[in-house]
């Protein structure tokens, strides 16, 4: 077996091996059990006091959502302000200009929604101050997602009706106990491996061959750590984690790759440490794992086997498809990253997805279209929760039983919310893509796409899949820094971030208020393998039915042209 394959397996294996203890720790943090970071509690209490937060005061679900939306509104305004003024503010050694209003709108929404779609290039489009504000957004947007997820965990597993906990407490603990400690460790390792952490501007130098060049540096290590851990994905440099200063060697690549999947997986394990949720957690994990592997294996296969269009011209396929990839990672680990970053809503890239083989590009799109094979920190579980409710409902109808989830009856109101949320994602992606295709064809706005034909369509489909999945990766050939894309992507990101958090929290809140139905022989078990298959089937049916026509116009058509 070659070193590339061993590398991939070690990365995947380590991810799950590290996620298990982390999951246990995460559960302890939220359940209020002692952990080794308890020495931080005086500081947290001081923060609570300054803010006027009573961390142990119960909040109902509406109040939780108000807290969440209020924070996001403040951050949006902060982001718009800084990005539109960055040119004349401090910490701008390279004198990068301010962003245009539409670009600032896109960027601010993109970062508070945990998407990190970047229509600017870090080297020339953002000041160091902006980059640090974005780091702040990367922490808080991830913490919001996790806090919402923990709320639902709490609602599902509590025996006391209506007990949901306190959003601010979850938010605070997520930052001080989980994101910050992990980010510090990762950022330190990265800076020891050569990732810059400096406030100096670009370095001008004359190369060995005598060319004059300027090298961008900046406070990158701090950003890259939280960018990966918080499934944010917004990189410091234009080329993201393909940039050698952002991801200098195979070790950093392995660590960053593990960090992408670490917390999303650990959260599923964490659920298993909540009362009576072990079986449920196991079922969810295996369904997600199956989905992940179904997408990862073909992507790795196709990237390792090279581009047939080049092979036909007599070029050796030995190294795999290397266009848009870096030698130090190789084609295999690049494909693995590509799938990991799209099944989670991370969106950082260590190779350019636009140049992937058609079907590996398609598995990446499918990861974003399903958006719950581990998914973004917190929100991945929330998406899965919606599918679970639909699966419970359908299986309940099939066997003629009242649909229940963990002892709570699912009724019309919950089902309505779940259906709307499940359909929102395909609706946003497909309608927006149709609109873009229409604009591209009818108004002859040229210059959007780098690639002709099927692949050009894929670029547009990918862009909105990424926006709607709050992913943030791109088929980079698209020239998306135009008012049309900035605003349409921004709107898609807003809807697809806030509604899929509001929906599940509302459902969980409604369910938490209901009486627990005692388990009986007639109860449909939600922790069984059968039910897992049922959920997987629901996911496949919803995703396949809604997206297959669009995918067949893009990557599928391209595949059959290429492998003819």
């Amino acid at each position, binding site marked *: 077996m070659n070193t590339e394959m061993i590398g991939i397996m070690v990365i995947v294996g380590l991810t799950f091996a590290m996620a298990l203890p982390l999951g246990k720790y995460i559960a302890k943090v939220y359940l209020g059990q002692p952990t080794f970071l308890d020495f931080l509690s005086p500081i947290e209490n001081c923060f609570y006091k*300054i803010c006027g937060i009573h961390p142990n005061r119960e909040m109902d679900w509406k109040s939780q959502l108000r807290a969440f939306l209020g924070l996001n509104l403040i951050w949006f305004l902060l982001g718009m302000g800084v990005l539109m003024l960055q040119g004349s503010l401090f910490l701008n050694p390279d004198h990068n200009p301010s962003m245009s209003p539409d670009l600032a709108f896109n960027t601010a929404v993109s970062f508070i929604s945990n998407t990190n779609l970047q229509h600017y290039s870090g080297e020339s489009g953002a000041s160091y101050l902006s980059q640090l504000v974005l780091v702040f957004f990367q922490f808080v947007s991830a913490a919001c997602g996790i806090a919402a997820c923990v709320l639902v965990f709490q609602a599902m597993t509590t025996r006391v009706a209506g007990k949901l906990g306190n959003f601010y407490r979850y938010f605070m603990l997520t930052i001080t106990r989980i994101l910050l400690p992990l980010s510090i460790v990762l950022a330190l390792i990265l800076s020891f491996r050569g990732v*810059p952490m400096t406030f100096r501007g670009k370095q001008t130098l004359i190369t060995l061959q005598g060319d004059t060049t300027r090298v961008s540096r900046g406070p990158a290590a701090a950003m890259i750590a939280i960018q990966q851990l918080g499934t944010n994905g917004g990189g410091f440099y234009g080329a993201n984690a393909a940039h050698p200063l952002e991801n200098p*060697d195979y070790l950093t690549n392995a660590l960053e790759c593990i960090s992408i999947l670490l917390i999303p997986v650990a959260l599923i394990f964490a659920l298993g440490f909540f009362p009576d949720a072990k079986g449920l957690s196991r079922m969810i994990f295996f369904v997600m794992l199956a989905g992940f592997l179904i997408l990862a294996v073909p992507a790795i296969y196709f990237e390792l086997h090279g581009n047939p269009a080049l092979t036909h011209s007599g070029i050796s396929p030995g190294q795999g498809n290397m266009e848009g990839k870096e030698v130090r990672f190789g084609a295999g680990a690049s494909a693995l990253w590509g799938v990991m970053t799209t099944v989670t809503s991370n969106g950082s890239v260590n190779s350019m997805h636009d140049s992937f083989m058609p079907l590996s590009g398609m598995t990446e799109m499918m990861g974003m279209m399903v958006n719950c094979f581990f998914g973004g920190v917190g929100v991945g579980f929330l998406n899965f929760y919606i599918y679970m409710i639909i699966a419970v409902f359908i299986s309940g109808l099939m066997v003629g039983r009242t649909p229940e989830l963990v002892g709570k009856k699912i009724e019309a109101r919950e089902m309505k919310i779940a259906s709307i949320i499940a359909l929102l994602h395909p609706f946003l992606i497909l309608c927006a893509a149709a609109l873009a295709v229409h604009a591209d064809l009818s108004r002859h706005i040229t210059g959007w796409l780098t690639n002709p034909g099927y*692949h050009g369509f894929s670029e547009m489909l990918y862009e909105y899949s990424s926006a709607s999945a709050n992913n943030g990766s791109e088929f980079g050939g698209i020239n998306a820094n135009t008012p049309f894309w900035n605003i349409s992507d921004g709107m898609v990101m807003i809807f697809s971030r806030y509604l899929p958090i509001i929906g599940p929290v509302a459902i969980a809140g409604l369910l938490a208020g209901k009486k627990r139905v005692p388990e009986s022989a007639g109860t449909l078990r939600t922790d069984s393998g059968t039910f897992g298959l049922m959920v997987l089937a629901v996911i496949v049916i919803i995703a396949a039915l809604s997206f297959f026509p669009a995918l067949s116009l893009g990557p599928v058509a391209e595949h059959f042209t290429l492998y003819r």
Partner: protein
Amino acid sequence: MKSHLWTGLKLTFIMVAVTMVAYPLFIRAVAALAVPGHGNGQEVWKDGRLVGFRQVGQSFTWDRYFTGRPSAVNYNAAGSGASNLGPLNPDLLRAVLQRADTLMAHNPGLPLSGIPADLLTASGSGLDPDISPQAALVQVPRIARVRNLPPSVLAGLVNRCTTPPLAGCLGPATVNVLELNLMLDRMK
């Protein structure tokens, strides 16, 4: 809602202090004190002159140097980027074949099928500092001729400059082109 906004404002202020100020400053402080290169990047000096950063690839077009990966941004280290050409794009095939022609013209005797793909395809960042050992070895005869050095010595140099897979078994082996060319210059 009003009370939430007021709480949110204060919480935002605290989180800005923690994650936007304290956290990066802490990492910066450790980098400045403990990391080789002080967090400014791994500088490479030659004859008292800064000639590059170890991890940032640079353009080598002269026959007397080992050539690195093709770059879609011409090794602009202030604006990284890739070609983003799709696998079926005719421009991709054209660019690849053109690079192959150039390589074969500069390296007589090198067959098309013998050129490793990393010398023909543009990297993801446009700044890839590495090539595969294979890609370095196919350039040995050219360098040997131009520099008038025995090929076996150059092959040994490539070997010494090869970074093996991590822990001997993870990922590909690489050759840092800047480092290799520096060593090459030092041989005379």
